[in-house]
């Protein structure tokens, strides 16, 4: 006898039975498919990229951890900035359908996040095996995100090539489209670079062998840089003043200088292959340093009465400077390459510092947005001097209101001043892109064996007050 029952659409709806591990494995395969699919719609990819990042961050935040893991905050901020940028320019990708594969990845990541969140009891410590699994999930999440980002980068390159091939470059429309696509491409490349370095720095050994991971402890510099990445983005978004931009330019200039110093030491020590150093890497880093310092001067000349910066930004800078100084200096002098090689795991330090270039690129884009959207004010008197020195015709009402001039009030920058700031910032963007590209060719001359964890300074140095985090005599990244 056959019993016929009425179909219940809710009860009979197929449910996703995949485990978190299976979901991540499927994401990995789907992300690889993205890389193989050369005929994909580049518009759809760019449209859907942000969705994947959001889902990955949801999963990242759902993975159990003792302390909140903020390593993806910088990537999140950079993706939001990219999204704002492409939403404001309808030429690419514009409205249209999403990328189906990327949507599926996003859905899988969200499902995995939901599974973890619904089953995890808060406040219970993980066992060592659980810690191992959590760390593995983080690496897999980064891996999936990296693949997806690279696929989006390929889409950007395809778009740029398409414009080159089909849109007349001599027209203003063609130039604007190309510039927009190139900017988007640079930003995606910076995000990809960040992800690559994150994975590289955090990759636990023995992850697939059942061995507990030999997790490299983040050094003081690693931690300070991660905090800088997050805080600088936050402060610039919340308070895009000239004082904030000046502080950021100052910090990036000094980080670039350290990068140059450590790279030189690593070449002299033979830690990295120095074939391209003199011809490509050194000039690129020197140019980047000059670009940041020139931008810093440009801001300093115009700063008005609003000189306050976010206290959290100051605290982060204080800790970062201390972390840098204990590496770069030997008392009042710069540490010699020989001392640096003794003091540091140079290869690890270089990887951390290369990340600063892409942090700077993202910050420069945010700075450009703030200047572009008229959020910045400048002191009236120096602004007038700069405007008068330009060849631009003086408007009928003059460049500055006389009453503002009398009190040297903060004013919206006159057009020539705005143009100059944007040009100085554009130099930083170009120099960052070149430096990122040049330093990506650095290769170690021997397999990397990180120092034993107990010789690395842990990241637990508290930031309680500016004076509590000043340099000490012991090195941060020890060997």
């Amino acid at each position, binding site marked *: 006898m056959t019993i016929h029952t009425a179909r219940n659409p809710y009860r009979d709806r197929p449910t996703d039975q995949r485990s978190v591990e299976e979901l991540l494995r499927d994401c990995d395969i789907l992300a690889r498919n993205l890389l193989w699919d050369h005929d994909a719609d580049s518009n759809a990819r760019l449209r859907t990229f942000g969705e994947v990042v959001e889902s990955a961050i949801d999963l990242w935040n759902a993975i159990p951890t003792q302390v909140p893991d903020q390593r993806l905050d910088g990537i999140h901020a950079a993706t939001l900035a990219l999204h704002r940028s492409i939403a404001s320019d309808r030429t690419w990708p514009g409205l249209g359908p999403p990328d189906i594969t990327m949507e599926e990845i996003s859905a899988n990541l969200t499902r995995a996040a939901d599974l973890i969140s619904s089953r995890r009891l808060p406040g219970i410590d993980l066992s060592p095996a659980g810690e191992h699994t959590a760390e593995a999930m983080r690496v897999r999440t980064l891996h999936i995100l990296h693949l997806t980002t690279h696929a989006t980068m390929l889409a950007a390159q395809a778009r740029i090539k398409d414009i080159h091939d089909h849109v007349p470059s001599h027209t203003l429309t063609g130039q604007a489209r190309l510039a927009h696509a190139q900017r988007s491409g640079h930003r995606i490349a910076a995000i990809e670079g960040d992800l690559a370095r994150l994975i590289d720095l955090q990759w636990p050994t023995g992850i697939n062998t059942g061995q507990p991971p030999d997790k490299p402890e983040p050094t003081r510099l690693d931690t300070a840089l991660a905090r800088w990445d997050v805080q600088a983005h936050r402060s610039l978004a919340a308070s895009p003043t000239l004082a904030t931009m000046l*502080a950021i330019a100052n910090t990036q200039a000094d980080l670039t200088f350290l990068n140059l110093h450590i790279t030189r030491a690593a070449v002299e020590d033979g830690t990295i292959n120095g074939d391209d150093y003199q011809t490509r890497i050194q000039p690129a880093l020197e140019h980047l340093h000059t670009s940041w310092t020139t931008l810093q001067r440009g801001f300093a000349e115009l700063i008005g009465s609003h000189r306050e910066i976010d206290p959290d930004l100051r605290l982060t*800078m204080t800790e970062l400077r201390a972390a840098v100084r204990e590496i770069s200096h030997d008392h*009042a002098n710069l540490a010699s390459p020989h001392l640096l090689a003794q003091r540091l795991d140079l290869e690890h330090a270089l990887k951390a510092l290369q990340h600063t270039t892409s942090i700077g690129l993202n910050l420069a884009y945010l700075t450009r947005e703030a200047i572009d959207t008229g959020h910045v004010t400048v002191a009236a008197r120096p602004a007038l001097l700069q405007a008068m020195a330009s060849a631009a015709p003086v408007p009928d009402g003059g460049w500055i209101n006389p009453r503002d001039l009398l009190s040297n009030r903060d004013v919206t920058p006159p057009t020539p001043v705005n143009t100059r700031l944007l040009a100085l910032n554009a130099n930083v963007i170009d120099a960052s892109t070149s430096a990122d590209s040049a330093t990506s060719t650095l290769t170690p001359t021997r397999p990397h064996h990180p120092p034993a964890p107990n010789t690395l300074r842990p990241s637990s140095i508290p930031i309680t007050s500016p004076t509590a985090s000043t340099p000490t005599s012991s090195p941060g990244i020890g060997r």
Partner: protein
Amino acid sequence: MNATATSPAERTWLEVIALLVAANDAGLRDAQSRPQDLNSAWGAGITAAGAIALLPDATARQSISIEPAVKALTVAELIRAAELATRAHPIEDFPQGATDIIIEICQLVAEVRP
């Protein structure tokens, strides 16, 4: 100086800020010849931001300037000048929180001491 701060100690504090900002600028100016001072110049800028934050808004927004001859000093000299300026008044006359800033300045002095 063209500041109109309300008390002599506040005027001195503004002078300290101006000297620290000048040290920050001097780091950029001398970057080629004295790259070892860049980090301390950076620190002077950070400390200046901390010193500004201690002042009431109206005072913090006053424009101040220092003599060109002073601006021409080195990073180390400007930091030392800032520290010397803080000796002009008893600590309680300075804004609340001045101790932390003075400690920071003293650490900068120690950094740039040959």
